[in-house]
């Protein structure tokens, strides 16, 4: 059963296309792109600015409607769902990390995570606090739980952002340039945390970045240019030993 599910892509984009603008200003950023992402694998989507990698991530994650094609996630056609169904799908299955940390200035590290548990899963304050503390401990931030973003370093803030994305234990984790604002030492740690989410928890992790140093930390690299995928590189066997499947 597990083997079967691993052979099937957890997330699949089929003939995806997307343009912006109209008439003479119309720019096509995705040209008939098909992609498969697997559970337990961290995939790096690389390419120069304007290559369409963030647009592809947005479409695969249910944030941006494609002009053509479809996205199959866990057997569901993501863009055939209603807005509310897609919102619920994201709530249940998706975590996001963005380049800017986008943390609430007024809230502590613990509260940033608690908020997702309480508002997203309807957790009790007690459960939300326990889960937040567990996640912060996992991220090495146990002693920083009471700090606000202005009292934390960039790396710490990005780790809180990762915690916020992973606290729901999502099937999918989408990271857009998660290390570009960090020095490499901290960025390496961030990528390792994402890699751990894939390998230890069986999450499907898609990282969009242009930093080539990340390559050696991921399972698979997909290069993109001018809205097309042009090279895929397997760094390790696709199937990993998954300690936990959801």
């Amino acid at each position, binding site marked *: 059963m597990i083997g079967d599910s691993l052979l099937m892509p957890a997330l699949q984009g089929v003939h995806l296309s997307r343009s912006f603008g109209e008439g003479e200003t119309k720019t096509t950023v995705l040209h008939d792109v098909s992609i498969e992402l697997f559970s337990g694998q961290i995939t790096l989507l690389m390419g120069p600015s304007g290559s369409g990698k963030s*647009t592809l991530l947005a479409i695969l994650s249910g944030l941006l409607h494609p002009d053509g094609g479809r996205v199959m996630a866990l057997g569901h056609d993501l863009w055939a769902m209603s807005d509310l169904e897609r919102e619920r799908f994201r709530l249940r299955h*998706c*975590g996001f990390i963005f380049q800017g940390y986008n943390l*609430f200035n007024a809230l502590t590290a613990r509260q940033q995570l608690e908020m997702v548990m309480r508002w997203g899963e309807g957790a009790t304050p007690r459960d939300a606090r326990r889960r937040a503390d567990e996640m912060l401990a996992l991220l090495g931030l146990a002693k920083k739980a009471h700090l606000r973003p202005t009292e934390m370093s960039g790396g710490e803030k990005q780790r809180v952002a990762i915690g916020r994305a992973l606290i729901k234990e999502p099937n999918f984790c989408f990271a857009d*340039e998660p290390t570009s604002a960090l020095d490499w030492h901290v960025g390496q740690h961030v990528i390792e945390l994402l890699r751990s989410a894939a390998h230890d928890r069986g999450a499907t992790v898609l990282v969009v970045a242009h930093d080539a140093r990340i390559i050696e930390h991921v399972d698979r690299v997909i290069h993109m240019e001018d809205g097309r995928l042009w090279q895929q590189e397997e760094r390790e066997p696709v199937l990993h030993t998954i300690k936990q499947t959801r």
Partner: protein
Amino acid sequence: MASYSLTTLWYERQRYVPGVLAVAFSALLIALQCGLLLGLFSITSIPIDHTQADVWMGASEVSSVDLGRPIPESAQARMGVLPEIESCEPYLQGFAFWSKPNNGGSELCMVIGSRLLPNSLGKIDKLTDEQCGMLAEEGTVIIDKSDEKKLGVEVYKKAEISGQPVHVVSMTRGLPSLAGPYVLCSINTARKLLPVQKGETTTYILGRCKNRQDAPRVVEKLKATYKDVSAFTQADFSLRTQLHWLLRTKAGIALGYAAALGLLVGAVVTSQTLYAATIASLREYAVLRALGIPRWRIAGMVVSESFWIGIIGIALALPAAYGLAWAADRLMGVTVVSLPWWLQSSAAAVTLIMSLGSGLFALRSLRQIDPAMLLH
């Protein structure tokens, strides 16, 4: 939700200060405007509020204490036979013309004639026993010190009311008037000074209940039994009198206009403060939306913030209103601003609704939340 809202309000207090101050300003304006008017019109019900009667019975459809018409003094028996009544007595009140000495012109005044024993129901409580003794002599009156110049007399001077000579024997303090200066005297003197009170008539019958809580029941009995009179408890007649003046002078319109203006200013500033605060956190909210957090949760936080802004604003405004009212009263020597609990509650409720409305109006900012904006 409340904890996140409060935390945000406190941590980013500089951002929210304009909203809180706008709400406080609105609440203060409403409370003081209404309190000022209430204080002013409470003067009109002084004869009710400063006497000891639990029940007032007068002519039918009496809309204000100063507009009482003559009723037979024998009506006293109607009240006296009720088992709840401990005692009852006549009370005369009506407008009359005061002629100043030495042809100094005339003024409209309000003559109040009551029994003057220490436990008399219609005796104004500002009168001392000594002053009551002075009024026993027919033709003697007492006015308030604040009306001395208006009436053009001093103590021991003589004037005329309705062509009858009166002798000012003393003065009270703290008995301001609105429509006409109060002239206090005995029932016998009042009968002479009020031309409409002919024969065995009175303006009101005042009653004291054995148990004060029976007053509403006595009123109901009188109303049910006698259609040619009206009856009120002390509190109801006081309120009725004040409302009559409020509506007759159209002061309510001015009050409503000023209060609406205050509310509008508060609503606009609060709404803009919340709108700007939400726009400033647009990217953070966008992350929550990307994570699938429902929009209503975010809307709830904005509305929750507006609720707390309202509460904090009101908490600042009411003590300030008290302080200003106290200062005004001290300055004028009489109650200028009246702030009963129901007025404070009403001002607080209206302001809170305004604040919540501002929060709802600020929700338009949430339309700008788009998770795709976070991608590069």
